[in-house]
């Protein structure tokens, strides 16, 4: 196990290179080993898929499908990676996706069309994130409890809004976005949004002051405070960011499924945390990797895809998913301790 890295106080707001070449090089190398081991797992899965179902698996449509299905949970995971990197947790992501999707698909909202639905989803997501952030940063609540409360109440509210029924989307502009005609150079728009969120997330975490502050708060909040970081404001922003990602994900899910339902986003919190953890983000905070998280999501989606193509049943799928989480983490621990 590696120790959480807490940057020296004077270097937090400067470029990472300032923390000295040897440590920096070690960090980069470790990150690379981790990424490589994840790429190895993904490559092995692709090999298994290619061998067992060559015609169906190695097919452009299948690639489009895997990436599309990774998009919704992928966007949520990017937000989750920031929160976990800062030493927090967001258990409410699935419930926020559900609430944002049903609110955005109520009949009244659908009258305002594409823009109405998009904005409602994003605003509801950000609003929930704001509540989480205020409770945690300024209310002094433990993230686990605050977001657990949000999980319960957002699900309840989603159920109340829908009364248990499915809100079918009738806005053509939304539905068209999920059709094959909307693909840009063969890439589904959902995947483009996912890619964009990933790139922005990577840049923000690795190349901005905001990102360095996030890592610093997660590594050692007290040290970060002494270094002049407004830790509370930083935490507020992070839960806002997670909520924003949930809002975007809810919109993608509306496009994908053509509806809003209170059961949407079921167990997203666990999938997103699992993807971030196998990606190499430390649950105790202080280290986060967007690349790793996204690879984690892709690994899960690819497994599901291979299982479905081979007509394996859900019990087998769940057992294997658990085994792969364990294997991936063990491989990482090995590679991390040998460097």
């Amino acid at each position, binding site marked *: 196990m590696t120790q959480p890295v807490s940057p020296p106080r004077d270097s937090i707001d400067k470029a990472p290179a300032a923390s000295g070449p040897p440590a920096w090089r070690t960090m980069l190398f470790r990150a690379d080993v981790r990424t490589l081991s994840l790429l190895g797992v993904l490559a092995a899965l692709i090999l298994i898929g290619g061998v067992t179902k060559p015609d169906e698996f190695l097919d452009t449509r299948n690639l489009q499908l895997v990436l599309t299905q990774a998009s919704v949970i992928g966007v949520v995971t990017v937000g989750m990676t920031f929160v976990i990197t800062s030493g927090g947790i967001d258990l409410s992501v699935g419930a926020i996706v559900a609430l944002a999707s049903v609110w955005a698909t109520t009949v009244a909202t659908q009258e305002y069309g594409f823009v109405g639905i998009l904005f409602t989803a994003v605003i509801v997501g950000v609003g929930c994130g704001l509540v989480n952030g205020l409770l945690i940063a300024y209310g002094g609540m433990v993230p686990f409890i605050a977001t657990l409360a949000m999980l319960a109440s957002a699900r309840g509210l989603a159920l109340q809004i829908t009364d248990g029924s*499915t809100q079918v989307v009738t806005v053509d502009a939304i539905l068209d976005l999920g*059709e094959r005609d909307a693909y840009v150079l063969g890439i589904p728009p959902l995947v483009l949004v996912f890619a964009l969120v990933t790139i922005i997330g990577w840049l923000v975490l690795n190349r901005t002051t905001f990102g360095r502050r996030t890592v610093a708060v997660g590594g050692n909040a007290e040290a970060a405070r002494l270094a002049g970081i407004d830790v509370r404001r930083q935490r507020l922003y992070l839960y806002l960011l997670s909520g924003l990602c949930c809002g975007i994900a809810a919109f993608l899910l509306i496009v994908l499924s053509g509806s809003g339902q209170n*059961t949407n986003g079921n167990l997203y919190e666990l999938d997103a945390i699992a993807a971030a953890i196998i990606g190499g983000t430390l649950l105790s905070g202080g280290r986060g990797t967007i690349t790793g998280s996204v690879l984690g999501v892709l690994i899960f989606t690819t497994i599901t895809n291979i299982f479905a193509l081979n007509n394996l049943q859900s019990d087998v799928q769940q057992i294997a998913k658990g085994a792969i989480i364990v294997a991936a983490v063990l491989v990482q621990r090995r590679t991390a301790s040998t460097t």
Partner: protein
Amino acid sequence: MPEFTSRRGLLFGTAAVSAGALLVGCTSNETKDDPAANDQPAADDKPGKAVTIGFAGPQADHGWLNAINQNAKSRAERYEDVTLEITEGSNDTAQQIGQIETLINKKVDVLVVLPADGKALTQVGLKAMRAGIPVVNLDRIFNSPQAYRCWIGGDNYGMGLNAGHYIGEKLKDKGDARVIELAGLDNLELTKQRTQGFDDALKNYPNIKKVARQAAEFTVESGQAKMAQLLQAQSDFDALWNHDDDQGVGALRAIEQAGRDDFLMVGGAGALSAFQAIKKDDGVLKATVLYPPTMAASAIDLARALGQGKGVGGLAEFEIPSSLTLYSAVVDKDNVDQYMATGFK
């Protein structure tokens, strides 16, 4: 039946109000503008002894379960002699046991229970029966016949059977026909029964082979995801049976996105959106196999009859039967109009 439609419209329109009413357990003092007196209840309509019926059901987080609650409430409202004590729905076994015990302590005359888990709630059913409160067990069955006076519910095996026969008849002249199945939650007993019935029906048609089965989760999202995978895995098949119309909304979306229309699809449960699609007949969905939420209204009828010591009209018996299994009718374009009013949202 048309009157029933307008009544449903009214109920859905005042959903928030109903939710409030549900919380305080108050149902009897709403306006009686009931025009639906002409459809046939199980026992006779004549006012009799006042009966208080306790109703405990699971959380209505799904279209069908919501329709169950609505059916129970609207049926109870039309009887002047019935007071309905309704508990807040819960999927938590311990909580539901507590709710039923509260109803027992309140000394309701009859209990109607749709357990989140029939096996887990058997003991509390026994307790009610021992306390002299007859239990109408709705749908998910208790483990012991001693735990209820009367069971009424749907036929999951029959759903699979009838879906299989419908598909079988449509494909009987086709050599080497291929069929796939999109099942519901695999950890529910009812999913296994639906699959078993389907497989048994297909045995009558040696030309048909089931080539794939995936389990979704009764949700739109899972229906879309699993169907998209199935379509990718099976480039060529003739029929699809989907266990549930709610997840069917997602499945139909996946089919549309994949641009496929080379097979016929049969749904399950009887959602309004499925009926509308069948009536329109412009897509793959050709039929749905019923699992009628009207069983909740019938359960209220039976509970009232039990409370008043009546039998069932049209039968020679003096007592109501100990079990009633509803028929899983196949609704297709020919008879969809007849069922349209019972479709749930």
